[in-house]
């Protein structure tokens, strides 16, 4: 059994892992649709988006490992960390739910990532800026596709609308976490590595609001609930994803295709 790596939790490492883990864990959830989506075209779409996200995650984890300076590569960072060392927001680790749940979450995350990549194109870290220059084009396409589905289902049949309303009620509670401010973000903003996630809040609400409006869906009221995945404190679902992702590398260290 391969032991866990010990992570240097410096702010700049955490900042890049937040974004990299967001891509990695959502890719894992989207990959679960392969062979299960309601129509073949969407089966392919989910897998395609998962691949793009996985590619973005690989690049970010590689860069995080270089900055960390402990010779951890993308595979060690993906497969040999403890749960508390993953920094994705709780939103992306929630079980995939039904198709409405998945496409709404895709729209929410793609909108966030698009805004993030736009800002990261001018990161003080040239490699991060280069990764963003590529990923932004992919995120735009993902956002367009997901938003299109939110509108079709929200402003659709009685059944599709009720599914979308249920998804919205479940997912919206995880929005506040996305835009909380903390020392990790503060350091990134100060060094020019990237924006604080809270800097994206207004633009995110503007774009998501327009999509939900078009879908004739109402934004749910705020609640007091606050998730904490970005700090490494995850929901009960995270352990199961990691078990599935990690067991092969843990059982057969260095195993390759």
């Amino acid at each position, binding site marked *: 059994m391969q032991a866990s790596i010990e992570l240097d939790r410096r702010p700049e490492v955490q900042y890049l892992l937040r974004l990299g883990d967001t891509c990695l864990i959502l890719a894992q959830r989207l990959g679960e649709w392969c062979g299960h989506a309601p129509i073949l*075209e969407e089966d392919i779409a989910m897998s395609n988006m998962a691949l*793009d996200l*996985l590619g*973005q995650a690989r690049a970010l984890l590689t860069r995080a490992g270089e900055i960390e300076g402990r010779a951890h590569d993308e595979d060690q960072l993906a497969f040999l960390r403890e749960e508390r060392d993953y920094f994705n927001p709780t939103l992306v680790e929630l079980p995939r739910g039904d198709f409405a749940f998945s496409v709404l979450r895709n729209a929410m995350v793609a909108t966030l990532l698009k805004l993030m990549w736009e800002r990261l194109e001018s990161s003080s870290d040239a490699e991060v800026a*280069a990764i963003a*220059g590529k990923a932004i084009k992919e995120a*735009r*396409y993902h956002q367009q596709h997901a*938003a299109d589905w939110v509108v*079709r289902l929200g402003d659709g049949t009685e059944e599709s609308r009720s599914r979308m309303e249920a998804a919205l009620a479940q997912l919206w509670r995880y929005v506040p976490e996305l835009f909380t401010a903390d020392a990790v973000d503060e350091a990134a903003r100060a060094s020019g590595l990237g924006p604080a996630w809270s800097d994206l809040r207004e633009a995110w609400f503007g774009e998501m609001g327009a999509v939900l409006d078009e879908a004739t869906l109402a934004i749910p009221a705020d609640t007091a609930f606050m998730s904490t995945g970005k700090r490494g404190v995850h929901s009960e679902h995270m352990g199961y994803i990691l078990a599935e992702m990690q067991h092969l590398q843990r059982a057969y260290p260095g195993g390759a295709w």
Partner: protein
Amino acid sequence: MTPMRPPSTDEARIARAWEVLGTVLDPEVPALSVCDLGIVREVVPQPEGLEIVLTPTYSGCPATEVIERSVLDAVEAAGLGPAHVTLRRAPAWTTDWISADGKRKLRDYGIAPPGAPALPGGAVPIRLVRRQAAQPVPCPHCGSARTEQLSAFGATACKSLYRCLDCREPFEHFKPL
């Protein structure tokens, strides 16, 4: 076939390397060579051998590693080795880098080539309920502009799926990026 004698000057080696790279096909769109696709950015002679600079198409394109391997195999088989590949992410690859010849080859192969990205840098305003592409995608079989998108994603990250409303043939479209 007898291998050619390795060229003696750097200039000749670089020219020969470009020739060889022009025969390395993209594993997912075998109508195009890696040069047609525009992903080979530079060939630089280094003390340790030829450096071949590639720019990946999509972040998660599973063909990237196969392409790296095929490029090295081809260069070494031509007697130009040792060589190594460097990935360069910036500036990001765009379908504008596909050569005119490459676009023609795509059409002949039955794939509608990419048009220009909608706005500079590929930015597009978010359009809700998009049923049709911003610009018509002409059918590569009959040339008709009356086509419709069947699926925004296709068998590979770089393509979407269309159907011609005149000749009724389905076809793939290389997405502008």
